[in-house]
């Protein structure tokens, strides 16, 4: 990773004269300090989550709260896993997430292409309609949408959570459109002169150039599906089909919340997402590097 970064620097920026270089070094140190402070700020919630996960009930009640657990209750993790059918929920969540991500990437890229790279009459008007659907308040669509899925016989299956992702999502259509609009149109024009169809242009020219934006959509869609609570809550009616985010709710009872177990379970729920992000980040950055060399 780091070698790639530094190679890129060497490749792309010409050697600068010495005085400016030292100014640049100073700038680097300044940004490093700012980044460290910001990183600490943003890591605090995670740190708090993980340390709470291994604290015992008595230690949770200590004032002021301890920064490091005095006793490490690793068994909280196994307790949390046994409190809910963790493995089964994990598999269910993975299935839904995977399909949702694939659906989001395919459908939104195609639709966004239609809204940005092809000129047709009424395009911007319909695009306005797409953006407008962002503003429909969700509570009011819940019941009619449920009835629609019930008529299709999809209740208590993953279909209501997966199938709609294959039909475009205004958030991602809009996002991809913004990126595709920035790609110079001469690229398409010259390809058309060479006889390329729109599909070919999308596949061979736009797709590689839009990789960073597609990666963003993939990450967003995956995390949204992973953390979605309301959808699985209402559409899944069999405990064997539940997802992890529903499992998290099980730690809350009528009068109290089991914090240590909740945080232990949350840590386990988040862990795969962090790994996915770290993996994606790599291809994400590489993708951009290739793109910008072109």
């Amino acid at each position, binding site marked *: 990773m780091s070698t790639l970064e530094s190679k890129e620097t060497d490749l792309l920026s010409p050697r600068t004269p010495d005085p400016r270089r030292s100014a640049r070094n100073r700038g680097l140190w300044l940004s490093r300090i700012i980044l460290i402070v910001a990183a600490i700020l943003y890591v605090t919630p995670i740190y708090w989550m993980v340390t709470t996960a291994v604290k015992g009930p008595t230690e949770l009640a200590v004032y002021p709260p301890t920064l490091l657990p005095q006793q490490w209750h690793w068994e909280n993790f196994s307790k949390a896993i046994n409190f809910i059918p963790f493995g089964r929920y994990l598999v269910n969540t993975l299935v839904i997430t995977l399909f949702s991500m694939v659906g989001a990437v395919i459908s939104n890229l195609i639709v966004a292409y239609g809204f940005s790279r092809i000129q047709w009459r009424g395009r911007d008007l319909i695009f306005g309609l797409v953006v407008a659907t962002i503003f429909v308040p969700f509570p009011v669509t819940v019941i009619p949408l449920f009835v629609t899925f019930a008529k299709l016989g999809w209740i208590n299956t993953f279909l209501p959570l997966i199938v709609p992702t294959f039909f475009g999502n205004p958030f991602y259509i809009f996002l991809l459109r913004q990126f595709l609009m920035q790609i110079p149109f001469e690229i398409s024009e010259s390809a058309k002169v060479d006889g390329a169809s729109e599909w070919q242009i999308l596949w061979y020219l736009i797709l590689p150039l839009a990789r960073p934006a597609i990666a963003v959509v993939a990450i967003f869609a995956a995390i949204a599906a992973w953390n979605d609570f309301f959808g699985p809550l209402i559409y899944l009616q069999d405990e064997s089909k539940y997802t992890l985010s529903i499992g998290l709710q099980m730690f*809350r009872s009528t009068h109290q*919340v089991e914090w240590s177990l909740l945080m232990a379970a949350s840590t386990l729920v988040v862990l795969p997402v962090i790994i996915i992000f770290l993996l994606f980040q790599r291809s994400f950055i590489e993708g951009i590097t290739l793109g910008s060399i072109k």
Partner: protein
Amino acid sequence: MYKLRSLVFAAALMMGLALAQTQVTFWTSATNPPDVKALKDIVAAFNAANPKIVVKLVQVTGSETDAAKLMTAVAGGTGPDVYMLDRFTVAERAAAGLLEDLNPFGANALASNYLPYAWAETQFNGQTYALPFDTDARVLYYRKDMLKAAGVDPNVLDPSKGVPSIKLIQDIAAKINKTDSSGAYTQLGFIPWFNQGWHYTWGWAFGGSFYDAKTCKVTPDNPGVVAGFQFLYDWAKNLDPQKVQTFLSTYAPPNYPPAQDPFVTGKLAMIVTGDWFLETMKQYAPNVDYGITYIPTPDGKKTTWAGGWSMVVPKGAKQPAAAWEFLKYIAGAPGQRIYTKESAHLPTWKALLNDNSLYDARHMFFKNLLPSANSRPPLPVGALYWDELTNAMNKVTLNQQQPMAALEEASSRVNAQLQQFCK
């Protein structure tokens, strides 16, 4: 040949058995492990006793008043056959058309078996929409160690001395309050509106009533309720409302875990809460010496209020007849006996109240309060009324509004919506 024939016969028999069995789906939002276990045991006992019906328990998450999952499922025709519903919302859900009327099954004949207030909560427009399940009661818990440390003899609060007066609680609390150098509270004697110290708690403690059936109007501006709110207003004013709020935000932040309850951690010496808190103390503060007594009132009258759950058959249930069989069992003596025994909740089935083997010594105190318990008026606008009262109480305990003004506002907002259901 013979072998094959018997095999086919056996298979046919099993299929026949499977066909003859009726499946009943039962949803509950309970997540507390002992409660869930008790429910599972009841289901297992019922299934063993009724070979023709198979009840399937499904845990659905969600808070007690938020029925989004149930509402969507019933609208889509995919709802359960039996649902465990907060009893106080039965009238509202019945009015909305979400529940099946149970009178055709003969529910009325069961009325006399239940505590009257619990039965009253299952009624709407003269029909029965639920069978009562468990119940609870609220009392004053006090920490003897904190009282002693402040130089108060804990025996003055012993229930044998009767209902504590408001004055007594004020005097004790004042001795316990502590501040740090900046003036922020680090320890308090009593915060009447904390935990189960609700609008209903104090409205009833001061002799108020919340609904007038004759005029079909809610009456939060009734003198007793106003007096209860005035008590909260003065208490807050005396301590500085924002400072008490900061104390709560510090030691009882939203969704605090049970181990962090300020009563458990010794930050608050007295609280009003329910019988389920016995379990919290056992689990998180087993060595703390505490007592329980009646909620203080100005006139020495015993008061408490009770809530609890109920069993309903949602509209569109596929097996209403089998569901009713299960309803009778779980909300009747057999089910409630298991639930009381295993989950330490209180029963609404009157006969079980006489079975002292079901309760430990502390629980007996709650049990004995039940016959005189108040319950929230079963109204089709129950949740709205609750929210408006809560809002009024917030304004009063922050001293943002006088009790009468805040309650009048609640009254007009709720009555405007109640009107459509009045005859």
